[in-house]
């Protein structure tokens, strides 16, 4: 498109005084030069940004493959290649990376599944039913979200301590306890995403199913959820990523080294002595990031759709 090219060429109106429709169809030589200059500029910006974006990730990949064990020894990118750090990663009982990884996976998947189910149920009722308090409910969910759970971390800590006295399986230092705390945020932005998507599923499909004798539960599970698979995947992924990244509540509730998540474990591991632990941390970072990054790009199309669904009305 010519419009963007022109824009890049001149930010000052006076530079291009004869910018009227006629100029579009037949470019003056000087203008064509300016346009290709603009395209060149765009390439420059794109390449520069890509390098800046990718550099830290290349760096950590390189550091993870460098057997010289310190932060200082990892300066030259990909100067040495070895899998030593990856082997060390699974070999140290003081830093049970394997356990952290499995814990994060379990907590993330359970939270994601719970968020989709709980949020989906609520979104279904908001989308398909009209009841008093509906608008109030929608707004309340939005407002409560403004008080993020990490602000209430003290109260959550004390609450879980109390719950642990009654149900030890759900108290401090349990994964189940952490998951139920995370599910407190299941009705949130994600509900809105699903609500918006459910609205796009034609109500006539429900009607037809109802006439065929399907109950509301059957309609929800076999029609709405199935037709909304893309948004469910996005919500699940966003919930999963949020859980993987969550540090505060996990660090307060989980104290046993083998119970920790990647965020808590890796942070404390690197905080002890940055320089010496660095290459092993790098290996851990690569393994920890891999599933998230792969999932993200596999679902990228839907994620971008989900993000912009909120933006583009």
């Amino acid at each position: 498109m010519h419009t963007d090219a022109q824009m890049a060429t001149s930010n000052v109106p006076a530079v291009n005084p004869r910018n009227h429709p006629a100029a579009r169809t037949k470019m003056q030589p000087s203008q064509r030069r300016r346009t290709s200059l603009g395209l060149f500029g765009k390439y420059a910006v794109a390449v520069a940004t890509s390098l800046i974006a990718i550099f830290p990730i290349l760096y950590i990949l390189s550091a993870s493959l460098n057997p010289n064990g310190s932060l200082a020894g990892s300066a030259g990118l990909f100067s040495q290649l070895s899998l030593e750090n990856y082997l060390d990663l699974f070999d140290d009982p003081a830093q049970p990376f394997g356990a952290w990884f499995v814990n994060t996976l379990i907590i993330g998947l359970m939270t994601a599944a719970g968020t989709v189910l709980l949020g989906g149920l609520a979104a279904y009722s908001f989308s398909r039913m009209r009841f008093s308090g509906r608008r109030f409910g929608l707004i309340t969910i939005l407002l409560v979200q403004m008080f993020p759970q990490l602000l209430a971390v003290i109260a959550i800590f004390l609450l879980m301590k109390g719950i642990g006295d009654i149900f030890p399986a759900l108290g401090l230092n349990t994964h189940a306890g952490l998951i139920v705390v995370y599910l407190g945020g299941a009705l949130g932005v994600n509900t809105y995403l699903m609500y918006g998507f459910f609205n796009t599923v034609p109500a006539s499909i429900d009607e037809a199913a109802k006439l065929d004798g399907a109950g509301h539960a059957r309609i929800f599970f076999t029609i709405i959820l199935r037709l909304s698979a893309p948004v469910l995947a996005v919500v699940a992924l966003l919930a999963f990523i949020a859980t993987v990244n969550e540090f505060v509540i996990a660090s307060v509730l989980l104290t046993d080294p083998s119970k920790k998540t990647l965020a808590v474990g890796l942070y404390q591991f690197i905080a002890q002595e940055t320089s010496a632990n660095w290459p092993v941390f790098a290996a851990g970072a690569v393994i920890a990031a891999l599933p998230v990054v792969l999932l993200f790009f596999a679902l990228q199309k839907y994620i971008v759709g989900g993000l912009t669904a909120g933006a583009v009305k």
Partner: protein
Amino acid sequence: MTSATTPEVDSTIVARPPRPDRRRALSATPSVRATMIKIVSLGLLDALVFYAAFVLTFNSEWVLAVGVVAAAVVINVIYLRRGWLPAKYLIPGTVFLLIFQVYAIVYSGYVAFTNYGDGHMISKESAIEALIDKSLVRVPESPAYGLVVVERLGQLAFLVTDPEGEALLGSDEQPLRPADNAEFAGDRAIAVDGYTTLDFSEMIADQKRIAAMSVPLTDDPNDGALRTPDGSQAFVYAATMQYDEEADAFVDTATGTVYEDTGEGAFVAPNGTELRPGWKIDVGLQNFVDAFTEESIRQPLLAVLIWTFVFAGFTVAATFAVGVFLAVMLNDERLRFRRTFRVLVILPYAFPVFLSAIIWSGMLNPQFGIINQVFFGGAAIPWLTDPVLAKLSILTVSLWLGYPYMFLVATGALQSIPEEYVEAAKVDGASPWAIFRHVKLPLLMVSMAPLLIASFAFNFNNFNLIYMLTRGGPQDINTGMNVGATDILITLVYKVAFGETGGRDFGLASAFSIIIFVMVAIISVVSFRRTKALEELN
């Protein structure tokens, strides 16, 4: 919005006055499987509630017990009776929301009005017991009691023979009482009915518990207690602190100092020394008053507050500017490898934030970081340890982390701008910059303004970035508080509540939380009003 939400269609779904017979006929026959699932789930829930109510009642937590039972009754009624369909769908998520969000917020509010924190974690009764226990010292020249340790149902008890040869039995909770049916070996009691006597190896195994035991001589804890240094003899220990119930005060028997309850959650001597532990009391607005008036708190809090606004404001503005700029740049169909560039440009967004922040902290390490090593020829630039540079580093990394989101959103928003608008502006002779400034940007803002507010609220509490990159440091040595140059409010809350150094003050930290909440809420509500975002919720 599609037809599903328009009023006409809605009313046919919900109200649907016609065909009531058929509707009832259909919904009246839920499948056997659905009914089974419902009964089993409710049964499990009720069993859990019954157990919880039992334990709560046992611990005299009457209010909570009644609350749990009442909630369970409501849930049962909603699922067992026909109708109230929306409630059936809303309940599961709402229960979690109410407990772990709403209750947590309310409870934060309550904690903010207490002195809850290190030294004030327990009730007054427990504090008194702990104080007496702490001040126990062996009474000089007191006689030795022969001792065996006995056990029943996992509880340890002392079986002692007093200097007159009487057998006595007692435990931590149960003061000494005569053990009539004790079995003697010589003049020493060695066993008693209903208890098993610990042998040597068992004593070794339980060493710690035995050493920690103190068995009161009588019901009055001031009379002293029996403790054992070796497991074979017990001695009388008396408290050097005598609790006077009448005066509600402690008297130090050695010095005669009187420590009184002056209403501050601790026993305080006339010279101001407090006995620790104290106990938890409601302090009203004290934490808030401290936050705003006490110089040692107000100074750092104010600095943190300003920095929080700078950080969040800059992050939103910069990521927005860069994101929109890139979106415009890469939105050119002539650009080859456009898709590849897009993927690379949003890579930071796909990478877990906590990892990115730690990686950057390594790259910016003053001595060994690759930034100094490679780009600055080994110069030791203190990126993360100089207060000003640390702030700059935070802002840069925050930009790196945040622009892909804005880029993604802006790309979507740009592509949805009708081509005719741009054409029309061109016909009018507008320059590209003018088109961007007066046509595209306003249209972008319509859709992106609510996201900018959300982004501000998010960055206001962007704990991970700050904590993983600098831990809030470098530490500010001029204040007594555990606070650093790059701390934002939420990291300050975390440090005050769970910090490794300094006392943990849940009350003050909760007060900070409430302050944050009020500020974010005001900012969000005011700006949402201005963008009219809430009015679209229909």
